[in-house]
């Protein structure tokens, strides 16, 4: 995913919820939008979202975020 954010490994965002943070991230990096979300606006299930190093098995958009929370992504993609 890094190439879709110009290899910017860390992005600082002010957001109250997970959904807000992801939308803001996609706004800043428009090329990421189609990779992160499907055409209905849902986060693709192929991406694992981490909060402070722990994988969220079922991330809820309204998950509240605190100052200094760190969101990360893991994407397991393989060939056929």
């Amino acid at each position, binding site marked *: 995913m890094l190439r879709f954010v110009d290899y910017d490994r860390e992005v600082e965002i002010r957001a109250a919820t997970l959904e807000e943070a992801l939308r803001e991230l996609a706004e800043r990096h428009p090329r990421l939008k189609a990779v992160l979300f499907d055409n209905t606006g849902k986060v693709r299930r192929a991406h694992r979202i981490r909060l402070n190093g722990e994988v969220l098995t079922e991330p809820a958009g309204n998950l509240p975020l605190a100052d200094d929370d760190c969101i990360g992504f893991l994407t397991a*993609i393989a060939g*056929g």
Partner: protein
Amino acid sequence: MALNTTSVEHVRRMVHDRWGSLVDEVNEAAAERDESGSPVPVRFYRAAGELGLTGYTMPRQFGGEGGGPFVWGLIVEHLGYLCEDTAFPLVMSFQPEIAKIVIEYCAEPAVERYAVPLGRGERIGGLAYTEDADAFSMSGTTIVAHDGGLVVRGRKSFSGPARVSDHFITFASDGTGDLAGVLVDAAAPGVEVTPVDTIGYRSIGGGSVTFQEVVVPDVQIVSRTDGLTPLNQLLNAARITIACGPLGRAQALFEHCVERLNQTVRQGAPLAEMPNVQARVGRMYVALESARAVLYQALIRMDEGSVDPVFDPSISVAKYLVTEKVNFVVDCAFRLMGGYSYYGDRRFGQALRDFKGGMLAAGTQDLLEINLGALALAGRPLRRKGAQS
């Protein structure tokens, strides 16, 4: 089913009793097909369906026997043990996985036409996904809107059973950066399959698939958006089928190797009595047993429903480890048996080529290392605050 010696032996006996005769028929011309690259005859896949093999793990409401992943894995492993045509168990065991994706994502008419017949052996399905690109850079094939439905354009460089497939499940760019997924009949206007020669699994019927303005009605849409998810579900399932058959085949070759070593005398002594030979055979044994333990662990987790359907670490570890170990075992056999394996028994050479296929199928070994490493570094999946129950 709990894992114990009785259950494993029970399944092996069932495979022998129910499908042993079919495997004997498949074996008759296995060597010729490996040499010529001609596909496994479709009639064998049809027979597998009629005899309840392909449908064993299909849900009962869709005509199957509802067998769980653990027993199914044991079945495919023992088919690999018995079957000298490695492509047959591989292609056959992938059919229910395609069917399950169709059942989960498609409307009823598509399920009736494209899923149920796979379990019955009445149709053969192939995955047409591979392009010379990563999932986010695919441009060689597109699936775009057309007159209320979709149209597929472009070329997929390789599909395993392309030459024997009745339909394909294909995933391609929708032109906006997303992946869409559709079912395409092999006989549909504009679909062309071109044979592709491979070094291993030569009887799989491999080919490239070209789509020239192929119109797909709504009913054949698997996913208009986020095709990446069903695709990865399919690849996740494929990793298990890629592991089971080759492990059984490697076990059979190990036993052939041991038998040969027991019959061979060098420097006035049986090879089997030489400590260096014993040590290498020991390493082969450890490789097979450890691979089997990890594979069975993944199958048990599948039985328990505790695997991630999109990318499961235990399934990927099983595919990774089995692939490494079966390649190790056949390499060891060459070292132990010398010329006999090179020109005396063609099955070892075939396995040498076939097992390389596991190195790249459903994700290269290196790519799996990256994915597994990243997951391991991220810690085990845990529920967090705000997670939906």
